[in-house]
Every structure is written in C-alpha cells, then in structure tokens.
C-alpha cells in the first residue's frame, strides 16, 4: 500500500522534472536532442510496475509518447498544436499522478478529451487508437515474467486496499463529524437562510458566456449553522484564518505591483489551501467552498495557465475580502451560539456569487464582465458595527424617530439621561437598551500567538524575581529585628512587593496553562475503537473536569499515557457483555475519566468498573520474571506497580489492541518525565483506578531544602511522608552493611545522602540527624540529612546535557543565597542506592549499637539490600 503511494510520489517528481524540461524547450519541437531526452524520460515513467496498473495513466503516457515520437519524426502537421498538447499532457499527467498519490481518481473523465485531441493531432481515430494502446500495454504486461505479474497483482490489490481504506476513513471521519455535530449546540438563523447555491462548475463548457446580469449576482445572506461550534476550536480557527488572510492580502498587494513575481502566487495559494482544509474540518461549508474556488483559480495561475493581470489580482483581493467577511460573520455566529453575544440581527449579505462569477470567467480565460458593483461592498462586515442606543430604543418602539431626533438635538449628556428627564421613557427601559448595546459591543475573544521560548524566558525571569524578592525580604526582616525603625517600614513595602510578585508569577504561569478538554476529547475515539475491535464490548466513557488547566507541556505529554491506560481499561478491564451480565453488572462498561486539583497538584483519574487486577497473577508473573522474590511480602500498591514494568503482560492472549506488555511502561516513563506519579488501586471484580498525580507546573517545584554537610539539596515535597529524629531503638543494621529504620513497625532502608553523594559519612551518629521518610512507587525509604532548612518553591533549572546521566538529580535551582541547590529525584535516589557504585565501600556498623536480634527479621522482610 505504502509502496504504491511511494511509487506515485516518485512519479510525481519525475513528471515535475519533465515539466521543467518542457519549460526549457519553450515549445520548440525542432530541438531533436531535447525531444529524445524527453521521450526517454516519459518512457521511464512507466518503469514502475505498480503504476502501470492504472489504465488511464498508462494510456496517457502512451499518447504522450506517441506525440513525442511523431514530433521527433516530423510527422506532425501543426507543430504548435502538438507542442501545446505535449504541455497539456505534462499538466494532466502531473495532476493525475498527484491525485493518485492521494488516492483519488478524479481526472479520469477529463483525460478522454485530451486523448481525442492527441488522436486528432496525430491523424488517428481515437477509439481505435485507444484500443491499440490497450492492446499494446497488455502485450507489455504479458512480456513480463510470471513472478513480476504476480507481484503486480499484489500491488494492485494493495492499491485497492488503499482506496478501500481511504473510503473507510472518510466514512469514519464523517461519522465522527456527525457525532461531534451532535455535541455542538446547533444554531438556527433567525432569518431564513438562503438555500446553498450551486457553485459554478469549472468544467462547464468554455463557450458559455458569463452574463453580466446584476440581479443574478445579488449579495446573499450565508448560513454558517452547519459549522462545528466547539469553543476550543472555532476561535482558534478564526484567529488563524484571519492571520492567514492578513498575509494573503499583503502578498496580493505585492503581486499587484510586481505581477512577474510568481513566488508570490505560491505565498497566497498555500494559506488559502490551509484555510480550506481547516474550514472543511470544522464543517464551515460556505467558507470551504469559496476558498476552494479561489484556490483553484490560484492553482491555475501558479501553473502559468492564467496570467497575472490586474483583473486577477482585483478578483483575488475581493475574494480575500469575502473570506474576511465570512470569518467575521462566523465569529458573530459563534459568539451567539456560544452565548457571549445576545443580539440576533440578521447577518449582512455577502456578494459571493459576483466574485465567483469573476473567478469562473478568469478560469475560462474570458474578460471580466462589467458587473454593476453598486451592490458589492467587500467590507460588509463594517455594517455589523455597534448599534446606537437611540436606534435600539426606536426599533423597540419605546420612542419614535422624531422624539429621538429632538432628544439628540438637546443632547449634551448621555442620551439615556436626556430621554428619562424628558419623561419619554422610564429608566428601566433605558437600562434594558443599554444592556443590549453592551452585549452587541462585547469584544469577541481574541488571542495572540507567542513564541514558546519567549514565554519560557518570562517564566524564568519571574521565577528569578520571586527568588530575589524573598532574598530582600529576608534581609529587611533582619534589619527590623535589629531595631532599625526605617527597616520596619521598608519591610511592609517589601511584603506588598512580595504579594504583587506572587500574583505576577501566578499570571505568568497561567499563560502556559491550557485546558485538558482537547486531550479528553481524543479519548472518546480511543474507547470507540477499542469497543469496536474487541468483539462487541460495550464501553461508555464519562469524563469530568475537562476544564482543568494544565501546563502546555503536560497536556502534550499526558496524551499518550492516557491513551494507553484507557485502552487497557477498555480492553482488559471491561469484560464482555455476557460476562458482565453474569457478574450482575450493567452490560455496558463504564470508564470514568476525571481531572481535578488537589493540594497544588493535578490529579487525573481513569477508573473502570471492569474485572480489576488479579494480584496473584501479577505476582506470579513478577516472580517468574525475577522482579520479586517468592517469599517477599508486598503491599497491593507494590504489586500493581509491576504492571508498569517494560514488557510485563499477564494477558493470556494478545489482542490487536493490547496485551503485548508494551504500553503501561510508557505511561510510567512519561509521567515520571512530568515529575508526577501513578498509583493503581484495584478491587477484583469491581474495577481498577489509575490515579495520576502531576505537578501544576513544570517550571516550579515545591521543595524542602535540606542540608547535608555543606551542601544543600531540595527534596520534592510531594514525595515526603514525614521527618523525625531517629532514636537508637529504631535503628538496626543488616549484616553490618545496610542500615534499616523501624518506623512504627514498618522497616525501611536508611539512605545516608552524604554517603550516596559525597562518598563519605559526615554524620556518624544518625540520631543527631534527621530521617526524612520519602515514598516513591509504593516503596518507602528514609533519607538521613543533617537538618531541614526550609520549605520553598524553587524554579527548576536544567543542569545541562553534561549531567544528564547523573542518577537521582532532577535538576538544579538557585537558592535564596545565590548558591546552586541540587533537586533530588526520588526514583533516581533509590536506584542510585541500589547501584554498587554509590554503595558504601566500608561497613558502617559502628554507627549503630542497638537491634542485634532485629537483623534476621529485617533481612527476611526487606528486599533491596541484598540486591546489587
């Protein structure tokens, strides 16, 4: 399938090369060497067996070859016609190949005309000739070896598959669109919408003349109600198109001044094309159709078939104006549909037909007819301007036009006040009218695109500002505690400054925030696909909290993990309808996707009401794979974490969708990349819940600054359970090597950060330090530090690629005193602890006195010490 696409793409390049040669020849058929060269190129076109499966293409190339051959042998009566035809073939074949590469076969009908002309030129009978061609090509096929033809058959089938696939995709996307239509609030115009007019067919007979009847080109009111009014999409679309149109206009104006600069046509063509594409996606049919016509015209210009004339640029500029007006009306319609605009004035008519007629005329190479332009007003949008208060009152029948006139004459103060004083209306009426005025004048939503790098720099700088502010605040507090009076006043000001900086930081952070809605919407599709593929499973996806905002990076990275989890839930979690009925559950399974804030974090939960995880099965598999020891006592949370190990799968049969054990490890990886964590809760028979906890932002982390000897490290507050000064009774050693801490009956390894990171024990007696209990992936460790300094938000900075391989360090930050603090990453710390390279070279047994009889038990119950 891909091969044939590739073949067409390759062919496209070849055809383009031929077109270039043709341009170089400039219609001169006397240049025999060039002709021979050309003939060779055309002959080599069909070299690919896959492409020769398309009869039209084969035939076209045959005719093309014949024409060239005849020209070469001087058998042509009219050289001009022949050279024109050769050019036309290049044109048409290129179009055909292009459309074939996209899986469409739309040019087929047009080709026969060309063949007839070629036959005429060669003095042959078309139908007979066509038979010849076919016979010839059949002979060609037969001449090829059996093997090759078998291969070709395969390729043909592939192509068929491709078409079928494309068709299916189309149907699917239509289905999807209609589904989304249901979601969108349908919008009905108050004014009767004019029926969809037929766009003048480009392929119409050229002898048709364009009539200059003004009445036929009356401006019309367009109907945008078939568009998909999805708030998250429509405004972005309008903004994008408007910025495209600004470019288009600028380039068109430039083109007017330098008509010979063909690259400008490209500059106009491309954005029009993307407007057309996006409009199609959003179902804005009127816009799509109009852009399509404009694009067609520009395409012809681009190919040099239509010269750049004043008529052309004028028409195109008018077309751009129409697109602009359409967009502004679409915005109004969207505002109304989505409720931010209360007015319902009919939209102004747009002279679409008039411009379409121009385009058609240009396409046919006719002169632009003089169409009375009285009715044409490209900037119809201007009419949509704010109505005046007086006009509203008159139209509401509260006052008459004469009364308004009188009041206006007297007006020095606001009109409403005058009218009330004159006793013409009461205050309520004016208030109502004012409300209307405000609603109609409400600025539609707008947005600007900002380079993400600029934004990040801003975030960084604000981070620095916050740090510096904290620094200054600390200094001033010191001053005032020294009894310095002016210091106290300064302190107050600095606190105020602090408030403003914090607010500014929040605002700047929110710039990077986007709602999760688009990500959640994608999941509907995933569930639908899974339930279709997984043999009649019925799955409903219910999502809540789509408006929860997350950092842009988070929303990008979270998508994949969510797809994997949801796929898992729907494919493995949810049972088949029969099974569910037997278990007394509703036939239709439910997957709940929700997002919410929880204490400075964002939690995304995916829960299903399926069969739940089988603890025994997972544990058995984990032991098989050597991930766990048979007699190891693990909590449920620890067992469930195994499902996120690479290559781990308990599925007995691998389905199309999942079961290969690839997927959930990606989840873990991506989420760790976002410094979040995944927890799995499950109840057999009742369902599974994946709970993803993510930091609000990636730029700042809530951390605890700890001191280890002279160094300062930052532990993410998210992983800290508690901290305390260990007593001798709580400490024990294992075989004189590893130290363990018994915290309220729970045993955990004691990791000396000094030893881990500095290679020396700085604090010989743990009871003089502090044990910070940290938790990650269901495992708890105690980190021994000298002291806790303070808790603060720190801006995370990368240490650069140089330190990428260092385990346990997530990055660095600038601390209040200007020094660099290293931010620890718990998963890495645990890993480093198990790594012999970081392990103590000598026993540290002397540090611990108590707990001898503890040893054996400790050893049996805890796992990581004997590893590595």
């Amino acid at each position, binding site marked *: 399938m891909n091969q044939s696409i590739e073949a067409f793409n390759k062919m496209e390049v070849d055809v383009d090369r031929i077109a270039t040669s043709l341009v170089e020849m400039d219609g001169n058929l006397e240049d025999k060497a060039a002709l021979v060269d050309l003939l060779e190129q055309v002959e080599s076109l069909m070299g690919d067996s896959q492409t020769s499966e398309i009869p039209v293409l084969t035939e076209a190339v045959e005719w093309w070859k014949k024409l060239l051959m005849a020209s070469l042998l001087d058998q042509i009566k009219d050289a001009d016609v022949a050279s024109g035809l050769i050019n036309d073939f290049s044109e048409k074949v290129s179009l055909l190949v292009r459309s074939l590469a996209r899986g469409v076969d739309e040019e087929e009908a047009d080709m026969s005309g060309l063949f007839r002309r070629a036959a005429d030129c060669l003095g042959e009978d078309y139908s007979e000739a066509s038979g010849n061609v076919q016979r010839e090509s059949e002979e060609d096929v037969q001449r090829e070896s059996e093997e090759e033809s078998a291969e070709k058959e395969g390729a043909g089938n592939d192509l068929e598959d491709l078409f079928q696939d494309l068709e299916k995709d189309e149907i699917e996307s239509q289905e999807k669109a209609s589904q989304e239509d249901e979601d969108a609030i349908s919008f009905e115009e108050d004014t009767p919408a004019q029926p969809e007019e037929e766009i003048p067919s480009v392929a119409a007979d050229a002898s048709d003349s364009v009539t200059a009847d003004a009445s036929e080109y009356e401006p019309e009111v367009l109907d945008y109600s078939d568009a998909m009014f999805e708030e998250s999409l429509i405004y972005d679309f309008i903004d994008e198109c408007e910025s495209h149109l600004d470019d288009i206009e600028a380039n068109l104006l430039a083109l007017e001044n330098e008509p010979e600069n063909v690259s400008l046509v490209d500059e106009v063509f491309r954005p029009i094309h993307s407007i057309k594409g996006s409009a199609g996606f959003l179902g804005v049919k009127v816009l799509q159709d109009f852009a399509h016509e404009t694009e067609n015209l520009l395409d012809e210009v681009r190919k040099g078939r239509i010269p750049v004339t004043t008529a052309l640029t004028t028409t195109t500029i008018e077309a751009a104006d129409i697109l602009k007006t359409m967009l502004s009306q679409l915005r109004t319609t969207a505002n109304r549909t989505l409720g931010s605009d209360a007015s319902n004035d009919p939209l102004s008519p747009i002279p679409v037909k008039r411009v379409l007629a121009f385009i058609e005329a240009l396409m046919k190479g006719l002169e632009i007819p003089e169409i009375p332009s009285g009715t044409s007003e490209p900037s119809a949008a201007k009419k949509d301007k704010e109505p005046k208060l007086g006009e509203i009152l008159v139209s509401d029948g509260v006052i008459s036009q004469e009364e308004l006139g009188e009041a206006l004459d007297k007006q020095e103060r606001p009109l409403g006040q005058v009218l009330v004083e004159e006793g013409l209306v009461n205050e309520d009426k004016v208030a109502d009218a004012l409300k209307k005025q405000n609603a109609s004048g409400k600025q539609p939503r707008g947005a600007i695109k900002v380079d993400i790098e600029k934004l990040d720099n801003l975030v960084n700088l604000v981070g620095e500002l916050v740090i510096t502010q904290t620094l200054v605040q600390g200094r001033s507090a010191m001053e005032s505690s020294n009894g310095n009076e002016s210091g106290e006043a300064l302190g107050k000001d600095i606190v105020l400054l602090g408030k403003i900086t914090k607010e500014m930081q929040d605002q700047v952070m929110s710039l990077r925030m986007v709602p999760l809605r688009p990500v959640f919407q994608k999941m509907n599709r995933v569930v639908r696909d899974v339930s279709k593929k997984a043999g009649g499973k019925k799955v409903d996806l219910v999502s809540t909290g789509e408006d929860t905002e997350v950092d842009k990076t988070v929303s990008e990275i979270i998508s994949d993990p969510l797809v994997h989890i949801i796929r898992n839930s729907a494919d493995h979690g949810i049972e088949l309808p029969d099974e569910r009925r037997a278990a007394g559950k509703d036939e239709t399974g439910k997957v709940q996707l929700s997002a919410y804030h929880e204490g400075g974090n964002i939690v995304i939960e995916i829960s299903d009401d399926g069969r739940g995880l089988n603890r025994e099965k997972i544990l058995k598999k984990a032991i098989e794979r050597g991930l766990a020891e048979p007699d190891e006592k693990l909590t449920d949370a620890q067992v469930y974490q195994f499902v996120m190990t690479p290559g781990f799968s308990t599925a007995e049969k691998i389905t199309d969708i999942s079961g290969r054990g690839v997927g959930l490890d990606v989840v873990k990886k991506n989420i760790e990349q976002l410094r979040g964590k995944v927890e799995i809760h499950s109840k057999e028979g009742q369902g599974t819940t994946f709970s993803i906890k993510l930091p609000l932002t990636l730029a700042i982390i809530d951390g605890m600054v700890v001191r280890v000897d002279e160094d300062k490290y930052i532990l993410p507050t998210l992983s800290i359970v508690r901290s305390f000064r260990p007593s001798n009774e709580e400490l024990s050693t294992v075989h004189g090597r590893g130290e363990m801490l018994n915290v309220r009956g729970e045993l955990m390894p004691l990791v000396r950060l000094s030893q881990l*990171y500095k290679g020396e024990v700085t604090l010989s007696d743990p009871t003089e330090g502090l044990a910070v209990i940290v938790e990650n992936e269901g495992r708890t460790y105690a980190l021994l530090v000298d002291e806790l300094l303070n808790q603060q938000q720190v801006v995370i900075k990368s240490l650069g690629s140089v330190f990428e391989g260092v385990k346990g360090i997530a990055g660095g930050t600038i601390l209040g005193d200007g020094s660099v603090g290293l931010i620890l990453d718990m998963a890495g710390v645990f890993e480093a602890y198990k790594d012999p390279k970081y392990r103590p070279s000598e026993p540290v047994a002397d540090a611990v006195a108590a707990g001898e009889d503890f040893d054996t038990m400790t050893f049996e119950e805890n796992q990581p010490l004997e590893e590595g």
Partner: protein
Amino acid sequence: MNTENAVSEEAMVQLGGKYLTFQLSGEGYGIEILKVREIFGMQQITSVPGVPEYVKGVINLRGRIIPVIDLRLKFSFNEAEYDKETCIIVVSIEDVLVGIIVDTVSEVVDIPGDDIEQSPSFGAETPTEYLLGMGKVKERVIILLNVEQVFSEQEMKSIEAASN
C-alpha cells in the same frame, strides 16, 4: 609533502587574531577571545555527585546554572589550591556555557597568523587534538587551545558515561 605543509601553513595563518592568555601549571595557554564570555574570580561551587573528578560542579551565572571544569585536572596536572588569583573563564561552546578554572588570567594578545605554528607531535600518547597550534608572543610560546575539542560532544558524553 610540500603541498601538505603549505596547506597547513595557510590554515595556521587563518588562526591569527586575539587570544585570551592564562597560566596553568606555569605554562601559558590561549583561548580565542570570541569564545570567551566572561571572567570572574573563584566562587562557591556546588559539587555534583557521580561525575569525573575534573568536573568540579555547577555555579550560578546570573540565574543560569553552568558546569565548571578544573582544567588542571582535565589535563592531568597536579591539583592546586584555589587562591585569589584563581579565575573561572566562561566560554561559549556551541551556545553551551562552560566555566573553566585556571591558575590566573594574564592578558589579551594579538597573535598574527604568521606567528602561529602547527603544534609538534609529542608521540602517540599525548593527545594533540586539543591544540590549535603554538603562538609566539615576545619570545614566549603560548599553547592555543581548541576549546571545542576540549569540551567536544564526545568529551561531554564521556562525562555522562563516567557517571553511569
């Protein structure tokens, strides 16, 4: 042979320009001035675990965290105590800033291309790819460093490898 020499001589001439010179273990070294971002005295360095010895750690350069490398250790010289003469030269290598610790910074000299010679070969064991050439300044010889090579990607990778 002759042509080869001619080519390399031409390359040497192109090396002419301004160099920042500094002392390291009694020898004079030079770095192309365009690569140098700034110079400051010794400051507090935060050490990073699990990296080769010559990577001393990281420092805060006005809000940016950059690695600092002790050139003495990098070149396998004896380690020296840092004093008030010790300087950190911040160089920019392909937009990445790296601080290098040197004994003392001397001056900026203009070395004409004619005064730069190809570095002699010291036998296979001594790597010469770090060197651009030898510059003659007033009877002294300045070793011109190719900082890109000193901190080439491969070198940086080796830091990573060592830390793994």
